[in-house]
């Protein structure tokens, strides 16, 4: 019983740290890049903005949204009897 529980909780810890702490970190990178892009009062240093960083910021945000979307579709589709396959790199729905 305890071993089974240890295995299950270990998996939850691993995935949760990856997603639950990794995505906020990625989002934070986005915020930082956005601030760097805006410059001026957005940063403590008050340096001039570097507009190219805004692109980096939006790539970060887009990645966060994409990971959430894939995660949700994995969970919801399994409820409807489908699984998500990454065989073709792009996620596709396959009936279980």
């Amino acid at each position: 019983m305890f071993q089974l529980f240890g295995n299950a909780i270990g998996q939850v810890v691993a995935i949760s740290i990856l997603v639950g702490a990794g995505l906020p970190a990625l989002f934070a990178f986005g915020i930082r890049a956005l601030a760097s892009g805006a410059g001026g009062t957005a940063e403590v240093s008050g340096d001039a903005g570097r507009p190219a960083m805004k692109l980096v910021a939006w790539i970060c945000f887009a990645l966060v949204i994409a990971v959430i979307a894939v995660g949700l579709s994995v969970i919801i589709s399994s409820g409807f009897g489908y699984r998500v396959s990454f065989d073709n790199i792009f996620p596709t729905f396959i009936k279980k």
Partner: protein
Amino acid sequence: MLLLILVIGTAIAFDFTNGFHDTGNAMATSIATGALKPKTAVTLSAVLNLIGAFLSVEVALTVTNAVIRIQDSSGAPRPEFLANNGHELLMIVFCGLIGGIVWNLLTWLLGLPSSSSHALFGGMIGATLAALGIGGVNWMGDGTKLDGVVGKVILPAFASPVVAALVATIGTWLVFRITAGVAERYAESGFRWGQIGTASLVSLAHGTNDAQKTMGVITLALIAYGSWTDTHNVPTWVKVACAFAIAAGTYTGGWRIIRTLGKGLVEISSPQGMAAEASSAAVILTSSHLGFALSTTHVATGSILGSGLGKRGADVRWGVAMRMVLAWFITLPAAGLVGALCFWLGNGIGGYAGPLLVFAILLGLTGWMIAHSRKTAVHAGNVNEEWRAESKPGASVPAETVATKA
């Protein structure tokens, strides 16, 4: 027939308290940081709970199997309970639900977030002990998988706040590391969007996890009574009723609990709020996807604590946290005691009078608790007032309200 109607009514009432008790798990941090206005937050959460409830198509008919032995593995009631239109099974479920509702309302009155699923399981265990004795409870399962009171309730309860706190601590620490150098006001406004997104995920997860428990209980009652036979599907009206009950409960907003979670544990900023909700969403969704659902409440509380631990110089009010943990310890036995007392009383009197009397007691207790809550009302207007240190549970209410009522 009367008993069946009472069971369905109390099940829907339980579902309502479930939504109402757990609004704070998703929305407390967004309300506390001002990312969302209180009313907007509960509305958003209610809508997402509603959607979540309809997305949960996996049949939760075997929900009681985790802790008690009144169903077989397909979800059908055990044949020995089918006598007299399933009277005994309906009584067990009825009293278990009452135990859950009473405990949910009492902890709400005290402003303590406690697990609604533990309250439900506690009530069921109590009623089963009263009805069938020790053998009616599934303590450990057969040892081949995580099962029973120990495997599905007690072990997860110890682990989930720790796991959530760990993830949120790491997340918060990373976020503050990465955004060092960004002006605080600029970061605050950016992270508010992240907060709204992550809080929405927690609401959605709550709807998918919790509404189906009540759906399973009602369907079990219908099968026991003999008016439904399909163990693979939930009747549509049950699904709709449960989805709307949990959404309505969420919309009503358990403001007392929102206040404790949002203001009582940690003074929270929006980067912390986002890290906390991201941790909650990740832990809840992964655990339920892997087949052992953790209590939303335990996870959310752990995450909020973690967001305090991960920020240098942040205060965590351990006194408030300890009072919550104490409430978690007694949730199972307390809801169980109510369930057992209801069963003894209702079954002792028997006939229709027994369950009706028990139902009347439930209504009376509910009325008393609501009346009592009015004395120190917490609502959308004052939920964010300054938290006064070392206040008693009933007094953890804004100063202004106390002054006007005194």
